[in-house]
């Protein structure tokens, strides 16, 4: 604890072992947090970003993620329990879920069971949106099911706490694209399940607005067949 007294918050964390997961955004290190099985989510410096931009982004996303997780919990959306926040080392410590699998794995392995979780995910997304939170990276990889069969949302690093209609639509857009790129066989049934859950929670009008928002985002993307120019027909 020598370093701890000198003000190094990471000294609270016992020496980090090898990461159990190395993602794009952060690495996860298992640790014991005063008796609680925990994970340290560390946003490590990226060599491809200018150091000052990198430091700014990592600190901002760490704080943002912690805030959004707290807000999600208040909105009635299960997230792993947050144990410690340190923007200086861009570290979050949170509870380690037992036997967690990603929804992406579940969709591939047990699409039947996955469908009800996707519906639940739609309900959670609606709760977030009603509480003025947009997740910002809502994919099948960012939803976990623990061994008791409870669904959790994770990875709030890109969340927005004052979302406009566009940010909310981005959630569905990203979810839909994670289906298209990772589970092309299950796009329709999972999309329907998600919307079923969403409208059950937020009402059909909100769901309709969300779908309309997605359509607008998709027309913004490059080379949409559907898009038409001001001159009428788009294709030659």
């Amino acid at each position, binding site marked *: 604890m020598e370093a701890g007294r000198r003000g190094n918050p990471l000294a609270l964390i016992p020496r980090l072992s090898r990461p159990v997961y*190395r*993602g*794009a*955004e952060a690495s996860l290190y298992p640790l014991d947090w005063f008796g609680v099985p925990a994970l340290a989510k560390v946003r490590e410096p*990226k*060599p*491809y*970003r*200018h150091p*000052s*931009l990198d430091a*700014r*982004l990592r600190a901002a996303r760490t704080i943002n993620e912690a805030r959004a997780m707290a807000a999600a919990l208040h909105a009635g959306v299960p997230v792993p329990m947050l144990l410690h926040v340190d923007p200086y080392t861009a570290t979050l410590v949170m509870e380690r879920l037992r036997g967690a699998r990603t929804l992406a794995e579940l969709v591939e392995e047990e699409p039947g069971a996955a469908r009800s979780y996707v519906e639940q995910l739609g309900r959670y997304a609606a709760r977030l949106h009603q509480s003025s939170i947009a997740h*910002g*990276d*809502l*994919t099948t*990889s960012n939803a976990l099911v623990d061994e008791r069969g409870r669904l959790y949302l994770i990875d709030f690093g*890109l969340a927005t706490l004052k979302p406009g209609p566009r940010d909310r639509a*981005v959630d569905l857009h*990203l979810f839909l*694209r994670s289906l*298209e*790129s*990772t589970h*092309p*066989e299950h796009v329709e049934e999972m999309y329907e399940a998600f919307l079923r859950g969403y409208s059950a929670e937020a009402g059909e009008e909100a769901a309709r607005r969300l779908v309309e928002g997605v359509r607008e*985002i998709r027309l*913004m*993307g*490059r*080379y*949409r*067949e559907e*898009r038409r120019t001001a001159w009428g027909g*788009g*294709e*030659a």
Partner: protein
Amino acid sequence: MVSVATPSSFPPSIRGCSAPRLYPGLRWRSGLRVLGIESTAHTFGAGVASSDPPYILASVKDTYQPREGGIHPREAAAHHVRVAPEVIRRALEEAGVTIRDIDAVAVALGPGLGPALRVGATVARGLAAYYGKPLVPVNHAVAHIEIGRLFTCSADPLVLYVSGGNTMVAAHAKGRYRVFGETLDIALGNLLDTFARDAGLAPPYVVGGLHVVDRCASRAEEPAELPYTVKGMDVSYSGLLTAALRAWRRSRGAEERAAVCLGLRENGYGAAVEVAERGLAHTRKPEALLTGGVAASPVLREKFQGMASLHGARAGWPPPHFAGDNGAMIAWTGLLAYMAGVTVDPEEAVVRQRWRPDAVETPWL
């Protein structure tokens, strides 16, 4: 400005690569030659690909450069009409073949600028019909990926494709190149070019192989604080462009202006590499391929390499002639598609300005 790439100038990587091994599912046929025609944007290119080493026999291109402003589609098309016969003639000559030795004609039917696309399509349809050659439709974005795979000898890469008109992260999954992320508004090359033009740094956009924004940025240490927008696996650059131009107009002195260039570059490149990293972490591909015109940037390459090494992936990119638009990539992809049985009736070979790569089935993979 005719640029010619000949087999003698190819890097060693392509020579050591066995193309049939990159396409284990494809029944490889020896002795095939395909002529490819590219005209999707401001480059008119023609190339000849062979199913035997060295695979690329010729690549000739001529790029339209406006004296001021950006690319006007009509002007680009007029340029293509002017240079097409000479570029194709020289490609055949470089390859040491005549049109009669060619087994099929491949053409990029999209995505791209309508008037420019129609020049290539018209020429290709004409050649195919007149000489009785099969016509092979090629998606320009897919062609960037396939030529990149050949030059880096990659079997299954995560791809970051960055050019004037495109910014996307793609990887092959379940019969197609799937788009994992892309720009929600303008492309990375467009960001750099528009900024350079409106800031009065361009044209010319590239000086001595380096983009003028890269040049301007090299004079700064600390980047100006500008918006950095990543949404999931997507990027957005329009806010960055607006903010950078505003900061440029407000800036006083060369030092502040260089800081704006550096901020623009760092945020622009950083966001693209970040979404590529997300794609790489998500797909767990062992290789990472950087391609498209912006892949010529040494700064971007270094960042891309650094990102890939974080995930134990091998990073690679084709040489600039083949990273940018060229005819050889159309010929090469056309060759693969032709071997897999893909052809189109000239009467049905219409251009598709918004033809997405994930709309293309890839029976050669």
